[in-house]
C-alpha cells in the first residue's frame, strides 16, 4: 500500500482539484482530506457520511469559583496568559498544559476534556473518504490529521486498497508535518508565480527533512511562462510530472463540484490523467 500526499505550501494552488483527479484515476484506494481547518474535498466528492465521531483531544482548565481563594498561584504559573485577573480561563488562550491544576493548593482547577471537532468516515462514488471538521478556533489540528491518517490506514488494510491519497493542508507547520509523516510520495502543486516558487522551496526543504520523495506539478503555468521556466531551472533535481495551463474549464468543474477528469473529456483532462497514470 502506497500513501500519496498532495501539498503546496501556498494556499489556492490547486491541491484539491488535483486530489479530485487522483480520486477518479486511482481505482483501489482510500481518500483522506487532511486540510482539517478548511476541508474542501467533500465539495468535489459529495460523500455520504456513514460514521461520525467526536474528536476529543487534550484538556481545558476550568476554575471552580466555590473552591478558589484567589491566591494567584495559577495566574503566576500560566505561561499562556489564559487566566484573567478575576480567575476565569480564556478558552482561546488555554493550551491545556495542566500546570494550573497541579499548582492550585485548593484543588479548585478542573480539567475538562477538550472537544476539538468531529471526524467522519464516508462513502463516495470514488471510494471511501476520511475527513474532518475542526471546531472553529480550535487547536490540535496536527493530532486530528494523525487520527485521520491512522483510520485511513486501517481502512486501506481492511479493504486491501493499494493507495491512500491525501489532500494536504497549506503551509509548512503542524498539520502539514503531521500529514507528511510516513507517506511514500509527496506531490507539491505550485503555480507559476514568485510566491508559488518561494513557498515551493519551503515545502521541498520540508520533504527533504522527512526524507520523502517529492514530485512537482506546475499549475496555471501560462500565466507567466518565464516564471515556469525559472521554477524548472531552480528545482532541476526534482521531477515535474505535469504543467497545467490556466483553464476556465477547470474553474467550471470546481464550480460544478465535479472532479475535473470526470467533468471534462478535453485533451487537457486526458493529459492530466496520463500524468497521474505515469507516476503510479
Amino acid at each position: 500500500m502506497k500513501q500519496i500526499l498532495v501539498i503546496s505550501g501556498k494556499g489556492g494552488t490547486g491541491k484539491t482539484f488535483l486530489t479530485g483527479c487522483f480520486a477518479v484515476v486511482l481505482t483501489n484506494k482510500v481518500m483522506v482530506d487532511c486540510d482539517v481547518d478548511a476541508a474542501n474535498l467533500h465539495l468535489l466528492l459529495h460523500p455520504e457520511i456513514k460514521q461520525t465521531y467526536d474528536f476529543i483531544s487534550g484538556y481545558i482548565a476550568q476554575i471552580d469559583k466555590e473552591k478558589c481563594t484567589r491566591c494567584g498561584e495559577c495566574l503566576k504559573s500560566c505561561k499562556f496568559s489564559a487566566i484573567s485577573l478575576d480567575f476565569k480561563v480564556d478558552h482561546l488562550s488555554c493550551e491545556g498544559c495542566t500546570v494550573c491544576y497541579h499548582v492550585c493548593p485548593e484543588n479548585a482547577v478542573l480539567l475538562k476534556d477538550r472537544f476539538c471537532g468531529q471526524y467522519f468516515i464516508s462513502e463516495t462514488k470514488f471510494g471511501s473518504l476520511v475527513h474532518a471538521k475542526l471546531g472553529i478556533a480550535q487547536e490540535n489540528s496536527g493530532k486530528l490529521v494523525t487520527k485521520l491518517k491512522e483510520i485511513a490506514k486501517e481502512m486501506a488494510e481492511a479493504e486491501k486498497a493499494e493507495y491512500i491519497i491525501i489532500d494536504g493542508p497549506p503551509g509548512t507547520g503542524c498539520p502539514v508535518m503531521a500529514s507528511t509523516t510516513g507517506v511514500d510520495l509527496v506531490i507539491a502543486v505550485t503555480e507559476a508565480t514568485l510566491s508559488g516558487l518561494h513557498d515551493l522551496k519551503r515545502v521541498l526543504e520540508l520533504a527533504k527533512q522527512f526524507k520523502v520523495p517529492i514530485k512537482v506539478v506546475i499549475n496555471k503555468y501560462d500565466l507567466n511562462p518565464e516564471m515556469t521556466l525559472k521554477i524548472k531551472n531552480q528545482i532541476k533535481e526534482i521531477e515535474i510530472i505535469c504543467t497545467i495551463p490556466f483553464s476556465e474549464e477547470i474553474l467550471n468543474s470546481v464550480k460544478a463540484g465535479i472532479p475535473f477528469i470526470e467533468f471534462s473529456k478535453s485533451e487537457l483532462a486526458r493529459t492530466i490523467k496520463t500524468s497521474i497514470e505515469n507516476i503510479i
Partner: protein
Amino acid sequence: MIISVASGKGGTGKTTVAISLALSIENSQIIDCDVEEPNVHIFLNPEIKEEIEVKTTVPEVNKDKCNFCGYCSSICAYNALSVFKIDSSGDVLIFHQLCHGCEGCILLCPEKALKPVQRPIGLIKRGTAKGIEFIEGRLNIGEVLSPRVIESAKKYLKPEKLSIVDAPPGTSCPAVAAIKGSDFCILVTEPTPFGLHDLELAYEVTKVLGITCGVVINKSDQDSSIEDFCEANKISILMKIPFSKQIAEAYSKGISFVEGMPEFKERFRSLFEKIQRIIK
C-alpha cells in the same frame, strides 16, 4: 488601528489586499503573520534593518540532580518527556517538537533538576519598504509553533499607525493568533464553492473573537453565492476585484496590485474609509 486580512481558503488574495491597503494609506505598517509561508516581502522588497530570533522555552535536565522519578513525564500534557530508570541511574529524553514551553516540569520537579533553556523556532524581520514599516514572522522549517512566532511578530504593532496584519489561511490556532485583537477583519474570498465554504468558517472565527468583519470578493464574476451569504448574515461587501489576467500576471511577477494598476489606489482608500465608518 489594527486591520487583519484573513480567509479560510488559501490563494484568495489576502496578501494582495493587505499590501494594496498598506500602500494606499499614509502612516501604515504591515505585519506578515503567514509565518509558514510569508509572501509580503516578495511584493515589497523591503530593506531589512533588523532580524530577531524567536525562541521558545524547553527544559534541560541536570543529571546530577535528577533521580529519574518520572514525575515530569507523568505531568507533561504533551508527552514531551520520557524517563527511563535503570537501577540507580537512568535517562531523560526530551522531545523538543512536542514541548509547548509551559515550564510545568521545571516548576514542579521535586529535585529542581530541570532548568529552562531557549530554542530558536523562527525569525522576525523588521525593515521599511515604499514608505511602509515592514514586519515579517517566519517559522523555521520543521517547527510547529506557528502561533508563537505570530505573537512575537505582533509585539511590533504600533497603535498610532494603521497596522495591517496579513493572516495565514485556515480557522485554527495560527489564524486565531493573527486575527485576535484586531479592530476589524477583512475576509477575502472568491466566488467558488470552496471560497464560499471557507468564508463561512472564517466568518465563524470572527464571530467567536467578537471582531467586526467585511468581505472583499476577489476574482469576482457573475456568481452571486458570496453576495447571498453576506446579505443573509448582514456582512458588508467592501469591494469587488474583477478577475483579470493582467492582475494575475502582475501578481506572478511579484508586482503589487496597486502598483500594477494605480487606479485601484483610490478604491483602497475608500475601502479604508468604509471600514472607519463601520467601526465608529
